C-alpha cells in the first residue's frame, strides 16, 4: 500500500482506520479505471502476450500431437497418398516381435535405471551437502556429465568399453574378471552397459535436485536431534529421507520419463544391436519412421510410448502422494 503514495495525490497520512480504508478504496478505484480505459484493446492484451508462446507450442507440440494420433490410424509414409486404416497399425504392433522386444528392453531399462537414479544421487547429495574446502569444485565435477552432449558421452563410453580398453584393463588387473568383458558386443551385457551410461549422465543432474531439497530442510530439526543425542545415521534415516520425499517424487517422475526416451546412447554405441538386445522403444520408432519410412506405423508406436509415459507418471505421483 505504501507505494500508492508515490503517485503524489494520496499524501494524507491515514491517521485513523476509517481514512485508511477510504484511501485504499480510492486507490483500488483508480486502478480499476486505468485497467478499464480503452477496454477493447485492454481485453486483447493478455492474448497478445501469450501469442508467440502459444503459436510455437501449438505448432510444434499440440498440433503434432493430434497429427500423430491421426497418422497412427493411417498408412502414412510421406510418399504415397495416405489411407485410413483404422486400428490396423496397432493390431500389427501387437503381432510384431520386434515391437515386443523393444518394449521389453524399455521396461527393463526402467526397472534397473530408475531405482538406481532415485537412490544413488541421494548419497551423492549427502556427500556434497557440507561446506568443506573445495566442495564447490566437487559439485562442478559431478555435474560435468550432465552438460556433455549425449552423443559425445556415448562415444566416450564406447571407447572406455573397448575389449582392449581402459575399463577392461582395470577389471583384469584388479582381478575382478579373468577375461575381458564384451560390454557392447555380447547381447547379454550390451543393454546393461548402455544403462550404466544413462546412470552416469543422470547422477549429477539428480544430485542437484536432491541438494536443493536437502538445503530446504530446516536446520533446527538437526540441532534438536543433536541435543537429544540422536546419531547422524539415524538423523539421516528419520529426518532427511522423509523430508526429502517431494524431491524423490520429482526425481522418480523425471528419471522414468528420461528412461522411456533413451535414444542417443543406443544410437551411438550399439545401433540397437547386438541381436536387437539394445533396441529400445524410441529406437524402434526412429527406425520404423526414418529408415523404413512407415510413418503411420511408427506413429502408432509413438502413441503407445506416450500412453506408457502418462501412466507411469501418474502411478509415480500417486504412490508418492499416498505416503505423505
Amino acid at each position, binding site marked *: *500500500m*505504501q507505494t500508492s503514495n*508515490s*503517485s503524489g495525490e494520496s499524501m494524507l497520512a491515514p491517521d485513523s482506520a476509517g481514512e485508511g480504508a477510504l484511501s485504499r478504496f480510492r486507490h483500488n478505484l483508480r*486502478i480499476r479505471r*486505468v485497467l478499464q480505459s480503452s477496454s477493447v484493446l485492454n481485453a486483447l492484451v*493478455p492474448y497478445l502476450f*501469450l501469442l*508467440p*508462446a*502459444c503459436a510455437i507450442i501449438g*505448432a*510444434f*507440440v*499440440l498440433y*503434432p*500431437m493430434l*497429427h500423430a494420433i491421426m497418422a497412427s490410424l493411417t498408412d502414412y509414409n510421406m510418399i504415397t497418398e495416405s489411407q485410413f486404416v483404422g486400428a490396423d497399425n496397432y493390431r500389427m504392433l501387437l503381432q510384431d516381435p520386434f515391437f515386443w522386444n523393444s518394449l521389453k528392453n524399455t521396461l527393463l531399462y526402467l526397472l534397473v535405471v530408475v531405482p538406481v537414479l532415485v537412490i544413488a544421487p541421494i548419497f551423492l547429495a549427502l*556427500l556434497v551437502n*557440507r561446506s*568443506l574446502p573445495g566442495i564447490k569444485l*566437487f559439485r*562442478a565435477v*559431478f*555435474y*560435468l556429465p550432465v*552438460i*556433455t*552432449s*549425449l*552423443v*559425445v558421452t556415448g562415444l*566416450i*563410453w564406447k571407447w*572406455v568399453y*573397448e575389449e*582392449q580398453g*581402459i575399463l577392461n*584393463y582395470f577389471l583384469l588387473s584388479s582381478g575382478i574378471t579373468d577375461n575381458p568383458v564384451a560390454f557392447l558386443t555380447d547381447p547379454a551385457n550390451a543393454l546393461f552397459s548402455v544403462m550404466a551410461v544413462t546412470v*552416469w549422465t543422470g547422477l*549429477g543432474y539428480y544430485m*542437484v*535436485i536432491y*541438494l*536443493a531439497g536437502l*538445503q*530446504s530442510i530446516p536446520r533446527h530439526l538437526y540441532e534438536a536431534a543433536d541435543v537429544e543425542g540422536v546419531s547422524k545415521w539415524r538423523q539421516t534415516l528419520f529426518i532427511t529421507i522423509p523430508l526429502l520425499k517431494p524431491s524423490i517424487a*520429482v526425481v522418480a517422475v523425471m528419471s522414468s520419463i528420461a528412461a*522411456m*526416451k533413451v535414444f*542417443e546412447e543406443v*544410437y*551411438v554405441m550399439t545401433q540397437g544391436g547386438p541381436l536387437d538386445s539394445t533396441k529400445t522403444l524410441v529406437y524402434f*520408432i526412429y527406425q520404423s519412421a526414418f529408415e523404413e519410412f512407415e*510413418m503411420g506405423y*511408427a*506413429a502408432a508406436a*509413438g*502413441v503407445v510410448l506416450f500412453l506408457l*509415459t502418462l501412466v507411469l507418471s501418474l502411478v509415480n505421483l500417486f504412490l508418492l502422494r499416498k505416503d505423505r
Partner: protein
Amino acid sequence: MKASPLAIVLRYFGLLCVALLTMGPFLWLLSTALKSGSENIFAYPPSLLPEQPTLENFGRVLETQPFMLYLKNSVLVALLSVTANLVFASLAAYPLARMEFRGKNLIFVVLLSSMMIPFQLLMIPVYSIAISLGLQNSYLGLVLPHACTAFGVFLMRQAFLGIPKALEESALLEGLNRVQIWWYLLVPLVKPSLATLAVFSFIAVWGDFLWPLIILDDPSYYTLPLGVNRLANTFSMDWRLVAAGAVFSILPILAVFLFSQKYFIEGAMRGAVKG
C-alpha cells in the same frame, strides 16, 4: 556433535572416488586425443598418459571436417534458441501470473500438459510440418522447436507470482502500459529465474541430437553433436581423431560452464525447487 577428522577424511575419500568416476572417462578421452599417430592406442596394458603429447590429431580433425563451422552453427542456434525462449516464455508468463481473462486456466493447463508429451512421439509430424514450412536445412528450422518451452512459461510464471502486486499497481497509476511494466519493472526483478531458464535451455539445445539429425541433411548446417557423430562414422577405426573431435566439441561448453558454474548449479537447484 562436531564431525570427527576421520569422518572428514572418509568424506573426501568418497568425493574423490565419485570424482574419478565422473572425470575418468573425460581424462581417458583427452589422453587418447593427445596420443601421436605412432603410438599404439590399443596397446596392452594401455598407457594412461600419451608418450609424446601432440596436437596433431586436432589439426587433422580440422583439416578433414569443418569443425569451426559446426562450432559456429552450434553457437548461433544456441544463442537464438535461448534468447527466444527467454523472451517468449516470460511474455506468456506475465498474463498467466498477473491478469484476469477468459480462458486463462484452460490455456495454463494445456501448456502445462504439453510438458508431458515426449518429443519422440512428435518427431514424425513435426518433421513433416517442418518440411511443409520449408524449414529443412535452415537455422530457423533448428531454432523454432526450441524457441519456447512450456517449462519456461511455467518457471517464469512462478517467478512473476513472487513479485508484490503493489509494485505493478503503482506503475499502472503512473500511466505505464503493460508492455512497459513487463519490460522495465518485472523482467529486471526476475533475472535469477531468467538465468535458470537460460542454463536449462542452453544445455538442452547444445546437446540436442535427434532433432538436427532428422531435419538436416546438408552438413553445412550441422551442429557439434552431429559433427562428432559424422567424424565417428568416417573414422570409426581411428579413435585418436574421434577423441580429438569430441574434446573439441566439449571445450566450448566446458568454458561456459567453468565461467558461469555458479549459475549452472544454483540455477538448476532453483529450478528444482520451483519446477
